């Protein structure tokens, strides 16, 4: 079995140590960093995301795979920089004002990073002004807004209003998600997309960078 296939297999199982060793082995074998990233790591996370969407695995398996992904990327990072490999795109992720829940937001971040998107994590309880500022500073093209509560989901609309008011609404795609959020709610507040889960969020975000 090729080293890239082994990386793929071990990452799906969440075996962080094995993946780190295999990534080092791949670097030593002279495999381009882009190929290790795309064909070994990202392709494995795509499989993890797909299985998650199909309810074949659940959050624990995703978290463990994402942890292995992060460990592997840390090993690969110097090679990626040396070889000029750029991320697919840049996204802002946060939980909206009034809400301290970060699990959904963290999962979305992991899955986005798993498909090669650079994430700017603004944390929890973030208001529209902070998001507008981050959009201007980072040049991110996608904003992912999480809310877990019926009482805080309306803050997702406040963010969209703030982006409009600041004149940057058209420069970003706004994605919303969270337990009480639905497609019809997303439509009603003028979001560009609703993601039912973290794997779908990654899939949708990728379409915005094509």
């Amino acid at each position: 079995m090729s080293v890239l296939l082994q990386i793929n297999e071990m990452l799906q199982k969440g075996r962080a140590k094995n993946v780190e060793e295999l990534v080092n082995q791949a670097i030593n074998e002279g495999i381009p960093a882009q190929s290790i990233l795309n064909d070994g790591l990202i392709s494995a996370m795509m499989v993890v995301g797909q299985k998650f969407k199909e309810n074949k695995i659940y959050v624990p398996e995703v978290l463990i795979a994402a942890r292995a992904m992060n460990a592997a990327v840390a090993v690969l990072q110097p090679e990626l920089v040396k070889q000029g490999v750029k991320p697919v795109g840049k996204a802002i992720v946060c939980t909206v004002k009034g809400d301290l829940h970060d699990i959904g937001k963290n999962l979305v971040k992991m899955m986005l990073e798993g498909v090669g998107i650079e994430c700017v994590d603004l944390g929890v309880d973030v208001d529209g002004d902070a998001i507008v500022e981050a959009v201007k500073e980072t040049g991110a093209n996608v904003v992912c807004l999480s809310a877990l509560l019926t009482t805080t989901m309306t803050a997702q609309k406040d963010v969209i209003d703030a982006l409009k008011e600041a004149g940057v609404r058209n420069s970003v795609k706004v994605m919303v998600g969270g337990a009480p959020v639905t497609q019809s709610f997303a439509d009603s507040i003028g979001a560009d997309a609703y993601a039912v889960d973290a794997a779908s969020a990654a899939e949708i975000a990728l379409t915005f960078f094509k």
Partner: protein
Amino acid sequence: MTIIPLLNKWNSKMTDRERFNAQMHYKEVDRSFNMEFGYWDENYTLWKMFVDNGIKNERQANKFFSFDKIECIGGNYWMSPPFPNIIISENEKYQIHQNGDGLIAEVKKDGKSSIPHYLKSSVVTPSDWAKVKKERFNRNDNSRKINLEFFKALHSPRGERDYPLGIHCGSMIGKIRDMLTFEGICYAIYDYPHMVEDMVETACTLVLDALDILLPEFDFDFASGWEDICYNGGPIVSVDFFRDVITPRYQRINKKLKEFGIDIWYTDCDGDVRPLMPYFLSGGINCLFPFEVNSCAHPAELFETYGKELRIMGGVDKMKLGAGREEIDKYLDTLIPLVKRGGFIPFCDHRCPPNVPEADYLYYLDRKKELFG
């Protein structure tokens, strides 16, 4: 404090106890059992009817709306002593504190409900657990002794009681999740599986100890539990772990319950419980509470799948309560055949949130009475 009820108790030909037992066992009832799960803290300051009548908690609200009575008792199943609650730091907006489970968490100071933002657990490695187990999970600690006389003074132990009394069977994994955090438990199951299994065994032993004391002394009508081990994307622990580690402990508890004739056991678990359903049922948990619709499914779907083996308490979509009277009507209509079927007690599928206008909540209670009262 004297509470003047806003609503009358629904007309009754049976006692609350008779009704609960009949409804849960698919027998004829005079009407549906009438209960609700409770309210967010904000409702007690936002809803005028609560403010004007001094209603400040769930127990008072239950009397205010004249709901049927249901009670539960149990032992001290968790850390004893707990970690001290201490404030570590604070600023204008947030407070960082350590809670009773030893978690360092950030909470908002504005009093609005939000689950705390957990930053760090006190238990990560097996050596952390060994220390906490020794200091806080001693099964012979005095604080675990059950004061039977106290409970007997509160609840008539035998047949003369007119309301259902439950025995609480604790939590096999939800409290462990609380102690380790959401991410922490996922990693711990992979990194230290024996440590997590020992935590589960410890929790189970503490419950079994209490059951040995309480079961012979009371005629219980049901058992209860709490897990909250699912979210809208499914379980927070792997299904294999749940099947291999949690279900066998449920089975041990269930064996004791069955010896004393208790055949209804509900567990409080939010989120999408469907992947765990076979393992709840094979462990003896045959009733879901409060059954969150928006994160899972319409209760009819689970009844269709599991038949009369499964009961549900809850299952009234809180999102519909906040969506206006037309939506409330439409949703309640879908529950008519389920109440008729039996094994189903309808109420809001979690604590009623403050976005539900109080007038619409009262409308919901009135409609529930018209349909099921």
